């Protein structure tokens, strides 16, 4: 479904990704773990068109994504929840969610909103509050909710559990698994490697801009090297 082949990318003269390759198959939940600064976010940015690769190819359903702008990529069903959340601060929670469905003209908004409110009831309660005045965790929920409004076919999540309470973290990860079960492919970046690996079909370990390890989620979770590095405290 999504293929990254020998990607090199970076910021200015800084090269972050070196010869990086990765695959997501239809209906698969793939996670990427790696140290801080390894290039996980950069990888997502390349896919969603926020930065362009220096070399290598990104292919989605057989078509190259190279040169497409972010909104064109979203229209193909690839939706990202970014680390910074990128919410529309002064707009209300509801407006943020409705805008999430920008690429889906003519859908029944109320129904779509209900779907999200079921997952995050606090958003229903605060539908008229400005996004920027929500707490850190509430904003994270809103960002995920907004992405789901787009009914993505490939959902990319950048550390969705950051700042969420333990209870919510688990809720969110379960929801992600449930989303995968509806046929959506998911590319997940998570610091809670243990939990992430436990729900992943496959996983990659990213190190200094290249893939160091690859394998089924459960298998990697059992790998001694991974255990030592990511499952510690």
């Amino acid at each position: 479904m999504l293929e990254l082949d020998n990607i090199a990318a970076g910021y200015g003269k800084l090269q972050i990704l070196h010869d990086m390759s990765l695959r997501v198959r239809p209906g698969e939940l793939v996670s990427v773990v790696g140290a801080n600064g390894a290039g996980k976010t950069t990888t997502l940015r390349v896919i969603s068109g926020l930065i362009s690769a220096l070399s290598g190819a990104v292919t989605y359903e057989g078509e190259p994504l190279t040169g497409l702008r972010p909104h064109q990529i979203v229209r193909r069903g690839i939706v990202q929840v970014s680390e910074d959340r990128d919410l529309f601060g002064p707009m209300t929670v509801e407006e943020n969610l409705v805008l999430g469905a920008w690429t889906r003209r003519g859908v029944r908004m109320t129904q779509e909103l209900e779907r999200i409110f079921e997952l995050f009831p606090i958003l229903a309660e605060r539908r008229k509050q400005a996004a920027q005045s929500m707490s850190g965790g509430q904003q994270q929920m809103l960002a995920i909710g907004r992405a789901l409004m787009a009914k993505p076919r490939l959902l990319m999540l950048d550390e969705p559990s950051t700042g969420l309470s333990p209870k919510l973290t688990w809720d969110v990860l379960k929801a992600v698994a449930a989303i995968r079960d509806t046929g959506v492919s998911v590319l997940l970046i998570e610091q809670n490697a243990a939990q992430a690996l436990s729900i992943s079909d496959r996983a990659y370990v990213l190190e200094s801009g290249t893939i160091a390890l690859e394998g089924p989620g459960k298998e990697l979770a059992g790998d001694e090297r991974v255990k030592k590095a990511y499952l510690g405290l």
Partner: protein
Amino acid sequence: MSTALEVRDVSKSFRGVQALSEVEIDVAEGSIVGIIGPNGAGKTTFFNVIAGALRPDTGHVKLFGKDVSGMSPHRISRLGMARTFQLMRPFGSMTVRENVVAAALSRGGNHRGAHHHAHDVIEATGMAAWADMVSDSLHTAALKRLELARVLATRPRLLLLDEVLAGLVPAERAPVVELLAHLRESEGLTLVFVEHIMQAVMQLSDSVVVFDRGRVIASGEPAEVVADPTVVEAYLGQELPGA
């Protein structure tokens, strides 16, 4: 032991949202207090009120015996309190060293002294290799350490940390937790920290305070608190697999 921080009856609301109500907390000098609670419980607001970024609707905050309610952040800071932000806020155009020097300079003293102190703090926080990097281009882990280094450069007696571990991979967390524990041991620093990473909370705190909907719903020994059914219900949820 004397109290570092004394919070009495503090309430704060934002147009209909009661972010804090009648919060009372005492923090003994040299102790480490962990604050947990569901998202939106009011933890960050609580920090904002203590640090002077927000004015409480009611109540008082006493810092080392001095009433600081309504004081401006920089004056409170000079009484020995320092805070980090939930989202990192480096002085982006400056290098790590310059960031730390700028912080050290806010405490008087000459440039030479500030540079020495900054050097020490950078060593202590493991930032030596980063010292000449422009802080805008740092990654999460380095930024979190920079935040720490910067507040330490102000020679605080009380430190408020808002989710310093968020966004760090597990291997990165350990050294930070060690550093914090070490600071208390060697410098007698008082720590109040907000954290969702429960292992760290359990490992570090002398006592834990639980917020929910602006109220303190439980407090006490870490082990006691996590066993409290209301806390499990509101915050922890079911047992975490793999945790």
